[in-house]
Each structure stands twice: as structure tokens, then as C-alpha cells.
């Protein structure tokens, strides 16, 4: 079975092309139809840039992104727009992701104007009303503006906008990080509901490990632009192999931290990117960057992985 999304050796940077200074450094992964892959990392891990690179909002310096059979990295103009019909994105700040001068109806209808231009305006309105009811908002919201809505309501509008073209893959860039706890759970369940009913796949970017557990089947752990570990959530969360994953989980569970605090500078010389903070670092780690080797869908990039 071919994967819905296949990303190979993606390099994303902001500046002259090249691996030095790359924010996403040679990342590869796959997502199958109807499943959720979570990408976890802290600030500077490159996870948001990964999302933008996959969505072609930033053109990757190198690597392939194959979505539903189409090579996104090679597409331009109207062909890229067409390919975008199956792809949608939900952003972190719900209020900011909606045009303040657009009504809810205008925002949710915009993808239809791009991908289904032959629809008449009353047909569009019907589709918008239906979509809004699916996210739990009544037709009275059609004429409202973002500034009069709460964060949770704005995110529902954004999700309605994303889902209206029935995308096969939705890239969620920290969709609940800016929301209150009590609203967060509802939004996550809304996303899961869409997945059950429409078979949507998600590329879910987050820094919150508990959210990963709630929504995702598989997880990718990133640090300074590189993949440290990936596998199913239950495997990785119960028995992490990479020291960084273990540090993340330990910090989140008990706040007991033994690692040294990171210097703000990124590691640009040879060796593993995590060497400065790793308690298990060996001389070998400073000489050669470890490679990811996959065994049964599980992999970690470490010379001294934690054995189960």
C-alpha cells in the first residue's frame, strides 16, 4: 500500500541553500491514509518549518514531498493549486489565522472559491452552513467576525475552512496550544471525529506530549532539525530509546531533570546534535552523527540507545 504522504530527505532553511543553517535537516517519514502522525519537539526543533515545508509554503532546499501520487516539490502554479485541494492546514493562533475583515462565511467559503469555482453563491452558502454545523456552530455565525468570537470558536471556524474541501491530509500546526485546557479537549475530539467520519489523515505538530497520546498513533521526535526517534506512540512513550525522548518524557511526567540546560547555540560541528545535553554521550557521539535505522516501524538516531 503506498503511503498518502511520503517525505524523503527534506531540507528546509531560510537563507542560502545548503545544510548549514538548515532548520529542517534531512527528515523523512510517511503517513498513510486515515492515520495521525504527531511531530513533537521543543522550540528550535524545526517542527513548524517542517509543516510549512511539506505544505510548500516555504520551498524546501532539497528533498521530495509526494502527496497522493503528486510530487509537490516539482509543481508550480495551477497544478500546485490543484494538488492543494487535497491538503489543508490548521494554524496555532486561531484568531490570527482568520482575516479580520472576512465574515465567518467568507473565511469558510474561500477554499471553495479556489477549488470549486463553478459553484454558485447559494450552493457555497449551503456547503458552509453544513460545515459549520459539523463543527458545532449554528447558521447565526455566518455573519460574525473573528474579533467577536472566542479562541475556541475561531479554531472551529478554521477547522471548518480546512475540512470543507474534504482534504485527505490536514497539517495541524499546534492547533490547541493557544487555547484553554477545557477547550483544547473538545477541539481535539472534533478533529478525531472528522478522522472517523471522513478518513482524514493528520500531520499533527505539537510540543505537548499528552496531546500526542490523545490524538496520534505514531510519533516523530525532533531536535534541532533532525529526527531523533520515531515509532508508535505506545511503544515510544512506554519505552523510549533515544535519550532526548526519555528526557522529554521524564520532564513532562515529574519535572525531574538532570540534563544540563541547553546553550542557545546550535550544534554545527560533527556528531550528534544532542551531544551537549546528553547524559549518555560517548566520544563517538562527537565524531559522527548517528543514523536512523528502522526495525519494524521503529527507529532512533543514537549510538547509545536506551535498551528496553
Amino acid at each position, binding site marked *: 500500500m503506498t503511503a498518502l504522504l511520503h517525505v524523503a530527505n527534506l531540507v528546509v532553511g531560510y537563507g542560502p541553500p545548503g545544510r548549514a543553517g538548515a532548520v529542517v535537516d534531512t527528515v523523512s517519514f510517511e503517513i498513510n491514509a486515515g492515520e495521525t502522525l504527531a511531530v513533537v519537539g521543543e522550540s528550535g526543533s524545526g517542527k513548524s518549518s517542517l509543516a510549512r515545508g511539506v505544505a510548500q*509554503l516555504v520551498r524546501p532546499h532539497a528533498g521530495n514531498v509526494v502527496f497522493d501520487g503528486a510530487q509537490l516539490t516539482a509543481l508550480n502554479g495551477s497544478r500546485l493549486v490543484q494538488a492543494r485541494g487535497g491538503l*489543508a492546514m490548521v*494554524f496555532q493562533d486561531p484568531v490570527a489565522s482568520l482575516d479580520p*475583515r472576512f465574515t465567518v462565511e467568507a473565511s469558510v467559503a474561500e477554499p471553495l472559491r479556489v477549488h470549486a469555482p463553478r459553484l454558485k453563491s447559494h450552493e457555497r452558502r449551503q456547503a458552509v452552513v453544513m460545515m459549520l454545523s459539523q463543527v458545532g456552530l449554528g447558521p447565526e455565525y455566518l455573519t460574525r467576525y473573528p*474579533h467577536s468570537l472566542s479562541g475556541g470558536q475561531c479554531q472551529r471556524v478554521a477547522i471548518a475552512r480546512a475540512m470543507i474541501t474534504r482534504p485527505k491530509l490536514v497539517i495541524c500546526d499546534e492547533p490547541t496550544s493557544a487555547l484553554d485546557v477545557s477547550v483544547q479537549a473538545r477541539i481535539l475530539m472534533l478533529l478525531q471525529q472528522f478522522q472517523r467520519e471522513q478518513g482524514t489523515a493528520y500531520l499533527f505538530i505539537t510540543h505537548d506530549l499528552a496531546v500526542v497520546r490523545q490524538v496520534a498513533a505514531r510519533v516523530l521526535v525532533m531536535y534541532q532539525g533532525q529526527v531523533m526517534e520515531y515509532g508508535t506512540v505506545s511503544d515510544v512513550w512506554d519505552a523510549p530509546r533515544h535519550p532526548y525522548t526519555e528526557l522529554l518524557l521524564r520532564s513532562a511526567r515529574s519535572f525531574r531533570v538532570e540534563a544540563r540546560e541547553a546553550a542557545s547555540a546550535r550544534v554545527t560541528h560533527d556528531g550528534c546534535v544532542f551531544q551537549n545535553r546528553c547524559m549518555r554521550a560517548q566520544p563517538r557521539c562527537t565524531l559522527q552523527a548517528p543514523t536512523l535505522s528502522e526495525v519494524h516501524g521503529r527507529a532512533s538516531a543514537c549510538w547509545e540507545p536506551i535498551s528496553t
Partner: protein
Amino acid sequence: MRVAVPLSVRVCATVLVVVASASVVLPYLSHWQAATLDWDHVAVSPSWSAGHVFGTDRLGRDLFVRTLAGVRVSLAIGLLATLVSVVIGVTVGAVAGFLGGRTDALLMRLVDVLYSLPYIFFVILLTVSLGRSPLALLLAIAAVGWLTMARVVRAQTQALRQREFVTAARAIGVSTPAILWRHIVPNVAGPVVVYATLTVPSLILLESFLSFLGLGVQEPAASLGNLMAQGAAEMEAAPWMLLVPGSFLVGIVLVIGILGDALRDWVDPRAR
């Protein structure tokens, strides 16, 4: 978030509308035409009995009618030139600000070059090549007005470009022209409207200045500028010939300026 229209805006807008309509309607009430020469009352000071409310000029033409004609011309040119400036300025500024890179560099260099031209030479060149017509005058004035507007819009666009709703539109696949038209332009509308209102008086003054110098509206047509030019020559003997058009000019510019200030205050808190 709608704030009630403040008093200052309403008052200024009313005054402007009154003056503009008066300048169109009132001349019909007077039996004097702008070009009619009344040989009986040459250079007569304002008097109701003589039938010339604002007096007459050196050739016996009724100053009331001529001044109002001048108001019409100045307002029309000011507004039209501002409109042209807005259209050109917003287009250039939005495109430069959004696309960035070489397009931006090219367009901004063009703006810089035009900015640095000695303005009077430019106007003289235009009038010489196109003749002293209202068209040349309009072009000359609009050519200056759009430059600052372009810079303002470019700065606003660069800020908007980073906002998440623009990224969201790109993620949907909205084309660049559609993003500019649907998302960027409406969101710069606030500052643009305010800036345009402030541009109108400066363009009116510019037109008056050019007409005063003899480069703008030509005799026998009247504009506040050339009326003031004639009035300046007769200042000692017939001061009303300068004072009447002068006060109208000052009044209009002042009212539009106050309107612009009031609009800025009204629009800004909403945009924040």
C-alpha cells in the same frame, strides 16, 4: 467595534458638501457668467446693490461666479488627482510589498528616482509636451501624489504579509493577485483612506501654486490659483480680488485637513 461617527467628522463633511454643491448650483442663480464682462462695473468692490456680491475683477467679471468656478476646478482636480494617486500608489505599493525581492527593488528605485526629480522642471516638461491643458495638469499632480502613498502601502503590506491569515490563504491555494485584492487591499484600506484625505488638500494647494505660476489652469478659465495670481497683482488697489479666492482656498484646505485628522482618529483605534 463600530464607534459612532464623531462630531468633527460630520461637521467637516457637511461643510465640504455644502461648499461643493454651492459651487455647482449657485452660479446658476446669478445672471453673471464666469466670462461675462460687465463694463459698467469694472474693479468694483463687493456690493449688493451693484449686483456683484464679491465684487469684480479688472475686466469686470463677477468675482462671485468666478470664485465658485475656481472652487469647482480646484476641488475637482484635487479629488481626481488624489483618486489617481490612490489607485497607482496602492497598486505599486501592494505589489512591491507583497512580492519583495527584485520587483520590490525595481519599483522602489523608480519611486526614489521620481522623488528626486526637481518638480517644477518636470511640470514644465509635461506642459510643454502635452500643452497647457487640464490633462497635463492632472497628470503632473497625480505623478507626485502617488509616491508617498506607495511607500505607505508598501510598509503596511510587508507587515500584513507575515500575518497568519495571509499564510492560511496561501495554504488554501489562493492566487497571489487574489490575495492582494481580497486580503491585502481591504486591510490597508484604513490607512489609505486617511492618507488620501490628507493628500487632497496638498494636491489642491499644488494645483493652486502651479496655476499661480501660470503653469496650470489658463485664462479665461478660473481656478483659485490663477484668481489669486490676478488678485496679488491688484492687492493694493482692489484687495478683495485676492482675499475672496484666498479665503476660499484656506477654508477648503483647512476643512479637509481637519476631516483627515478626525478620520485618522476614528479609524485607528478600530484598526488596532
